[in-house]
């Protein structure tokens, strides 16, 4: 063992109380950092799962200046052959007025090919009554959100009158009701693609294709490939910038706070180490007189700082992980928050990164006291008591 390490460890052992205090200070800061990072990651994932997962990752729109995509078979085939695209759903969407008895409401009517829409948007998992895929077989059916159904007083099996200027009024029957917990429940009604084309009086055309990707982070890349084909295409991050913004603001304000906590903890290390230097003046002078080099002295105090930092970081990361995981496994009262437990994710890379950064931060914080010890005048240092 190098003697610098030996001396550093001896200093640490000899000053138990200060050691415990400074390790605890770093440990607590790291613990807060860990827990908050785990919540942040969980929160982000939750947002992605509740919003992004149900969003189409990329939406293809008609060419510039056109209302529809004609002969859409080609573009659908091309889009499906792009790497990373797992499903695509052509649709025809427009506005419509819905009337049931004396109540009316305006909403979007979206004609889809049910199995394909299911593959992209996982509608079925939100269906609370009936069967979404029934749409494929009943030509005059609709699937409606629970909120809109309540507003119109609609039940399963009821027929609703759908009309719009320049459209063919139709009578459509409720064959399923869904509940996503999002605004769509009040504003979006599914029907089959053929029914929508009948309603708007168009040929076999669509005005959009929604895509599902293997990795939703690839949305911009895929969209730009499609744009090269002459169609308009946008990723979910372009269509929903507010989601990213929310996450970014949340994350950066979080990180600023955490950065300050770490900085304060590192200052704690500097002052602890300064105290150690002061209390070891005489010993340091003696060691110099006995033939220890200044670089050796510097290394001793840097090692002390590094060891304290590492110990604090490891203990804090351990405590933080335990706390985060146990908070995450604590069941919330059902139905109150719409989630069964607080979302928490402890990523090994985060743990590793935090420990490394804290360790380095402490080494840096140790430079000043270590330099001070190394530049002591041995004669003066020895004569202190």
């Amino acid at each position, binding site marked *: 063992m190098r*003697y610098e390490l*030996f001396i550093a460890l*001896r200093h640490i052992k*000899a000053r138990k109380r200060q050691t415990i205090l400074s390790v605890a200070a770093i440990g607590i800061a790291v613990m807060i950092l860990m827990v908050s990072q785990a919540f942040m990651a969980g929160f982000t994932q939750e947002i992605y799962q509740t919003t992004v997962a149900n969003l189409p990752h990329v939406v293809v729109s008609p060419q510039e200046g056109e209302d529809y995509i004609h002969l859409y078979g080609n573009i659908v085939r091309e889009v499906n052959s792009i790497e990373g695209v797992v499903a695509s759903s052509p649709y025809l969407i427009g506005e419509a007025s819905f009337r049931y008895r004396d109540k009316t409401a305006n909403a979007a009517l979206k004609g889809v090919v049910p199995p394909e829409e299911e593959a992209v948007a996982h509608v079925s998992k939100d269906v609370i009554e009936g069967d979404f895929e029934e749409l494929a077989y009943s030509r005059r059916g609709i699937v409606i959100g629970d909120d809109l159904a309540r507003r119109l007083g609609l039940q399963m099996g009821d027929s609703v009158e759908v009309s719009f200027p320049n459209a063919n009024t139709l009578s459509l029957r409720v064959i399923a009701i869904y509940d996503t917990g999002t605004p769509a429940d009040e504003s979006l009604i599914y029907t089959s693609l053929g029914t929508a084309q009948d309603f708007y009086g168009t040929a076999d055309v669509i005005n959009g294709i929604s895509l599902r990707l293997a990795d939703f982070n690839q949305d911009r890349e895929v969209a730009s490939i499609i744009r090269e084909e002459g169609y308009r295409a946008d990723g979910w991050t372009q269509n929903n910038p507010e989601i990213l913004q929310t996450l970014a603001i949340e994350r950066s304000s979080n990180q600023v706070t955490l950065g300050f906590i770490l900085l304060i903890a590192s200052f704690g290390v500097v002052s602890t180490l300064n105290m150690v230097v002061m209390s070891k003046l*005489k*010993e340091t002078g*003696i*060691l*110099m*007189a*006995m*033939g*220890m*080099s*200044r*670089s*050796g002295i510097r290394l001793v105090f840097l090692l002390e700082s590094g060891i304290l930092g590492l110990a604090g970081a490891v203990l804090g990361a351990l405590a933080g992980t335990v706390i985060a995981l146990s908070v995450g496994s604590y069941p919330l009262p059902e139905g109150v928050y719409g989630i069964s437990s607080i979302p928490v994710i402890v990523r090994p890379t985060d743990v590793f990164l935090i420990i490394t950064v804290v360790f380095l931060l402490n080494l840096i914080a140790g430079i000043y006291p270590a330099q001070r010890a190394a530049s002591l*005048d*041995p*004669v003066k240092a*020895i004569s202190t008591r």
Partner: protein
Amino acid sequence: MPETIVEIKKVTKIYTLGANKIYALNKVSAKIEKGDFVTIMGSSGSGKSTLLNMLGCLDLPTSGKVLINNTDLSNLDDDGLTSLRRNNIGFIFQQFNLIQTLTAVENVEIPMIFNGASPQKRRKRALKLLQKAQLPPEYAHHKPNELSGGQQQRVAIARALANNPPILLADEPTGNLDTKTGHGVMELLRELNQAGTTVIVVTHDPRMEEYSRTTIRLQDGEIVNEDT
């Protein structure tokens, strides 16, 4: 022709205290021969400790040259000074300056650690040196505060001998000891000198002069005479 082991040439050391300049040493020149036993004498504040610290590479002169084994200290960087000190000089202080948290034998091992000796070798040699310094063996594993002043000074002498230095420097080694114990320590230094070590002792106790062959007298930072 006797070999010169330490030489100082026109060494001046100035301490600045506010507007005051204190000439702790003023153009001091001297040569010390290998194997000599030198006492540096003078009243308090005459510059004895300043001179000794300079010989021990613990301090550098404001002007002038210090040569040890014909090496000019002003040509050495910090690492050079450290290794010169480590290999050539053993230091003994008036206050003993043992490390309180270490046992007697561990204190003696310290300089050997810096020279990279193995733990077994260190321990063996340290015990032998303590024996040579006449510390009763049962005290080898005691902490300094469990030892008498004389015993602590013996540990400090053993420590100064750890790397077998050709030069032994002692700043009032008997200052904190009673007369009888003090003479015991001086006897020990004389034995070491007879075995070949160059010994330089700072003292203002005239009775210690009897041990030396050469005396350097300082007064107000200047050598007033050097008698052999």
